[in-house]
């Protein structure tokens, strides 16, 4: 993975704060584990919230024709790859 540990920590905090996961700390989230259903147990509403948060924080907007949206949201690793590639300052 090309992203930094800082980015992965930042994304975990973003997820925890955005979704109000009150019992989860960044250490509890495995970079490679699935975020939805099995892993953290996030659901379809969380996906929408997370999409909005990514846009606000990093200016990232997905392209429905080019992107497999579900794949980008699969894990912290996948999200970090997306953010380091598309981050708009």
């Amino acid at each position, binding site marked *: 993975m090309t992203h930094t540990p800082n980015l992965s920590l930042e994304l975990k905090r973003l997820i925890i704060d955005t979704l*109000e*996961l*009150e*019992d989860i700390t960044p250490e509890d989230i495995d970079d490679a584990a699935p975020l939805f259903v099995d892993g953290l*147990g996030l659901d379809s*509403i969380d996906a929408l919230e997370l999409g909005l948060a990514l*846009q606000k924080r990093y200016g990232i907007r*997905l392209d429905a024709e080019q992107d497999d949206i579900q794949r980008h949201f699969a894990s912290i690793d996948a999200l970090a790859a997306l953010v380091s590639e598309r981050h708009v300052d």
Partner: protein
Amino acid sequence: MFVRLSDLPWRRIAPSPAELAAEHWVGHAELLRRSAAWRAWLDGRPGGRWLLHQPDPLEFTAALLALWESGRIAVLPGDSSEATLGRLHGALDGALPRTPPAGVTATAAPAMALSPSSIAVEIHTSGSTSAPEWLPKRFDQLDAELQTLAAWLGDQRWAVISQVSHQHLFGLTFGILLPLCLGAPFSGGTSRYPEVLAMRLGQLTDTSLAALVVSSPSQLSRLPSWSDWPRGGRRRLISAGAPLTTEAARSAAQLLDAEMVDLYGSSETGVIASRRPLEDPIWRPFEGVEWRLEGAHLLLRSPFLSDPTGWWEQPDEVRSQPGGFQLLKRRDRILKVAGKRVSLDALDACLRGDQRVLDARCVPVGNADGRLGAIIVLGEAHLPHRRCERRALISQLRQRLLGQGIEAVAIPRYWRFVERLPLNLQGKLDQGSIARLFADLDDHHRPRWLGCDAQAAQRCTITLEVPERLAQLRGHFEECPIVPGVALVDWAASLGEECFGPLGRFTALEQLKFQRPLRPGMRFRLELSQRADGLQFHIDSRLGRHCSGRLAFTSPEEQRNG
């Protein structure tokens, strides 16, 4: 042009306009081809009731038509969890595979005639009692509703983009069946993300088709405020499933440049009424839906109901208004979380089934998205004292709910483990107590409040927990966070005022001792006693004493005199 389901519209109406790309829109030619493949797969298998859970709209519809044309009934679960499928196993004649049959070059077998009085689908619904129920819908019921909706939509040619699941009645009716009966193209693949919605709207801009966007308050309240949402063409945006705030309605209508319509209905009744939330707050019943009031209770008689002649009691209270009604509240403990109907009684009962749980109350906590909180009463031996114990317990209770087929969005997000329910003097769990239990969600400087024992007028013991996201933990040791001493003193002072009223002006901090660090997720007791010389406090946990001290104040009287 409208053709009833029982007249097989998919075999009679011309395919969708050539201007729409076949890979993004479901047209009738592709539908018939896929349906023939499902027919071939079903050939030689038992008839009867078949489970259909298929997220892809094209494959879902193709499979649905294959079931109907071969005289079978489609049973639509709301989810595909193992618990749900396990519960159904044995009660059905078969389950269609998630992976569609591939490479079958079948020509469409002739369809069996569909009898209007036969059952078309059975829909899973969270029943008004705790048990989930299966709700059968006949073709004539569905056709009556679809015909009304077709007239309501008018003569315009439509393309339908649905953001909601077709496994539930609203998404099925508007996203799949209505386009079938109108010969309207509908979006293939999921459209629940705003990026996809924008793309599909863009594809319609240069066509003669008007866009019918089928959505929900969960989606509409989370639309990104892009400046370049595709514009142009007529659009109608419909929302159902939960109350839509005026703010969300206004911003969605503006962003999508659409006329906004809010729908009221239920799985049992189909559509009941509609309104234009930006123009008129009154619900206006659909053509053919009769209604009357018994007190504040809404009674309905409608051709969309299973019994079109009897009066159906809708579990909502309403107030009559010229031309329609105003919705007041639901009469049972059923509410909507992200548009999904959730029975709080069912959640409570399921949680109480855990042998450690003495009582359980799931409650809305008043946040915008409707996520639930759970208040769980445990015996002393089972109360979690540390973060890892709390997490393990939550995980087990979540698994328990999922295992009983509760939908993921309905699972409580916030958990409070208490020794007894904080009831008011009338023995009720009132809004004040609930707000206090979940107050730390909005104020990240507060500890989590879990109960209070007032032993005497001047003594009080409060049970608390250190929230993981406590603001004071920030920067207080990245590797090993502990609650700073100043936060503990603040809590003693502020909770002291909550217990005993205004304490006066703070003058001194005496005999302060920190003996043990307090960490995130720890459960602790704050013991407060009000004495002539100030407020004495002790903070203890299962590990022993953490902190003690005395806060001295100028009494309010002295303050006034001085």
